[in-house]
């Protein structure tokens, strides 16, 4: 029987808040750890009866941090449901819009969440260990650049999609409006700034993190290493793509486990239910659910920036490809299983997103006026997939012949990583809390780092200024008496 429980209540977001409970053995070692998701909204149920064309707007409300991902995945599901192939301009506009969103989102995550741990260090005083502390250390110039990147991204999302949050733009067969030459020029110019910003961010990472032996040791330490399968979307050359392609899964040894079109997802992915949380746990169906363990025999997989890079053979743009090679050279080849390397992978994706954004903004077809094909076939069923920043996102709808939704299935980005996040927390807690350990604030932060790397949508809220999850740890005696409370 356990004698103590440590509750970490980050009060952060997935569909609501998250809570970590760590149970200790009588001797004070970690017995178990649970990340609970205490909320459900039930989109799969209440979207039944709605109009199919409403789905990109309804499902955007699953997440206000990444509504673009749901909006676009939903539109792709509708393309399939209505049997309509969007014209090239439409596909390119959607992908460009999506790359702008990706670059904006990855920027927020890296600077607000990831950077404080590395630029300032995991043991820096918590009141400094935030984005403001980062700015103080590396200078106001960076703050200006980060704010500009975010502002540019959101302004372009509004310009193209109608609104900064919850765009109303993508439709079955394309998009509601194209762009003109004047808009294109602005998109291109800001895209070039974004490339520069991404390179600058990678340089900063190299200087501040890779130049520091202690950080490198932290990244490669066993507490933050899980040998799971990795999932990501690849193009025809097995390069990372966010908007479209085949889903590829590689094993813990890096070998291809599966490569399939999104519409076949049910053959490869299933979801497990536990009674202690409202969120389900996806796993690889052909391997099976073996509980919260890693390795080749366990169906757990990750779908993160690092997973996408692991699952691909390279990046489709030249600058990002160089950075891709650099990362694998530095960390001992493919695949990389160090959770904290996800931050590095995220910056490589940021660079790719910016490069791809400019590629598309300079594409001759991007200002084309054929941005929509009207469906003519009878709607029935459709599956749409994109890479959300936090993992492969799947929307699957059925409708009647009028295009009224009759059934819905969703596998949302962060959900893919729910089991590995639990595993990461448990392993970090096991490595860090041993009998006799004084549970300190810095130690809690190191446990927190284990799941922060995933940028879980639990952490959506923590994208904000100080980028710090508020934690409370309560050590309790078996009778529930509070022995010690540690807070920030």
């Amino acid at each position: 029987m356990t004698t103590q429980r440590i509750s970490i209540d980050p009060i952060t977001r997935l569909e609501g808040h998250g809570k970590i409970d760590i149970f200790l053995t009588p001797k004070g070692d970690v017995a178990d750890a649970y990340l609970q998701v205490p909320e459900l909204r039930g989109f799969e149920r209440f979207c039944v009866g709605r109009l199919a064309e409403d789905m990109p707007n309804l499902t955007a409300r699953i997440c206000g941090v990444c509504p673009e991902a749901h909006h676009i995945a939903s539109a792709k599901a509708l393309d399939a449901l209505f049997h309509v192939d969007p014209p090239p301009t439409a596909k390119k506009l959607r992908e460009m819009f999506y790359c702008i969103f990706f670059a904006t989102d990855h920027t927020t995550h890296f600077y607000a969440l990831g950077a404080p741990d590395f630029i300032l260090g995991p043991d820096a005083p918590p009141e400094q260990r935030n984005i403001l502390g980062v700015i103080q250390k590396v200078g106001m110039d960076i703050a200006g650049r980060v704010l500009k990147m975010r502002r540019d991204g959101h302004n372009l999302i509004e310009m193209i999609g109608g609104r900064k949050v919850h765009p109303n733009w993508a439709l079955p067969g394309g998009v509601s409006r194209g762009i003109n030459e004047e808009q294109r020029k602005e998109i291109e110019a800001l895209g070039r700034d974004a490339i520069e910003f991404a390179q600058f961010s990678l340089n900063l990472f190299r200087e501040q993190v890779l130049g520091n032996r202690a950080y490198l040791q932290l990244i490669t330490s066993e507490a933050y290493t899980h040998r799971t399968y990795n999932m990501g979307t690849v193009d025809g050359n097995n390069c990372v793509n966010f908007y479209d392609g085949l889903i590829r899964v590689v094993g813990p040894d890096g070998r291809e486990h599966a490569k399939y079109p999104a519409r076949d997802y049910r053959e490869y992915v299933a979801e497990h239910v536990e009674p202690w949380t409202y969120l389900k746990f996806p796993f690889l169906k052909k391997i099976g659910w073996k509980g919260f363990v890693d390795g080749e025999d366990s169906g757990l997989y990750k779908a993160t920036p690092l997973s996408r890079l692991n699952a691909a053979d390279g990046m489709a743009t030249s600058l990002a490809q160089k950075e891709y090679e650099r990362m694998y050279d530095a960390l001992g080849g493919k695949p990389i299983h160090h959770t904290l390397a996800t931050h590095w992978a995220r910056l490589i994706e940021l660079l790719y997103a910016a490069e791809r954004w400019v590629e598309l903004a300079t594409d001759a077809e991007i200002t084309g006026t054929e941005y929509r094909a009207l469906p003519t076939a009878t709607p029935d069923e459709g599956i749409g997939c994109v890479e959300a920043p936090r993992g492969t996102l799947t929307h699957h709808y059925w409708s009647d012949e009028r295009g009224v939704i009759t059934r819905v299935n969703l596998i949302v980005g962060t959900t893919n990583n729910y089991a590995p996040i639990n595993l990461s927390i448990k392993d970090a807690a096991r490595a860090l809390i041993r009998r006799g350990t004084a549970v300190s604030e810095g130690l809690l932060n190191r446990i927190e780092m284990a799941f922060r790397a995933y940028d879980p949508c639990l952490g959506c809220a923590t994208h904000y200024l100080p980028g710090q999850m508020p934690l409370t740890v309560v050590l309790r005696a078996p009778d529930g008496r509070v022995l010690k409370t540690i807070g920030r």
Partner: protein
Amino acid sequence: MSSKGKLAIYWAASCGGCEISILALNEKILDVANAFDIVFCPCIMDTKVRDVERWPDQYVDVCLFNGGIRTSEQEYMAQLLRAKSKVLVAFGSCATEGCIPGLANLTKRQEIFETVYCETPSTDNRARVLPLPEVQCDGNHLSLPVFYDMVRTLGQTVKVDYALPGCPPEAPRIWDAVVAILEGKLPAPGSVLGATTTCCDECPRTRTEKTIKEFKRLWQVAPDPNTCLLEQGLVCCGPATRAGCGARCPQVNSPCIGCYGPNAGVEDFGARMIAALASVIDSQDPEEIDRIVREGVPDPVGTFYRFSLAGGLLRRAALVPDAERHELPLPSPIPQP
């Protein structure tokens, strides 16, 4: 001690978009920070619920509360923050009218659980395990907040002083509200902090007196970019919707979906929309009008109460006898691959 006002920001059942919209204030966030001590905001700072519990009543000057109320935890936080705040603002569509998650009131908790945890085609749950408020797992006791049978707005849970509409509220409107608070120019309690005109009044599209014989679905047509969408036969919610966004959606050729909620004086969003549709139909025959609306709008509740179901007159569908719930077919079994 600082003489600045105390501000709290909290979320309940919401998507995070309200917070992103606050972030879109950009550099004005610093003005907010200069004007207020932010005493509670789980997304940016460390204050814990137990700290809030220790505050005296009315400790907080203004609390911006977003999200609806779906679980016991959210209900508790609404009551707690009501007690601790002088002014409680229902911030955004979820808190003011239920928003999209409020459409869950068309169904029941049990149906949601069965769909999500048992019937969705990728779920592998032959034992039909469902989340439980209290559970023993490997000898460890774990608890979850209770999932209520319906979504409530903040105002249906506690007394609310002001409402700031929008899904999410646009950053300039958030700033308007902040300025009103700072300058002591808040209207009478119970007011909506927003415009009193409609989305149509902000829309640059040209309106004529054109009438129509049928409504079209958005997937069926490519709308003309310059003329009124409603007059083109598309169900645009502009006539019932409060202004405030700048009619952004019609400007990208998409109909207004009503995310800014009912305009001032509109008691029921759906009723106002139905009246607006009737006004563009080219018919005087009630039966023909009925047919045109029925055929053109196959999901009336989702179309007319997309954002306002939980907060509007309907509130929930379960009160309607099952026999009349024809718009809600149960999902048919789909063969597994």
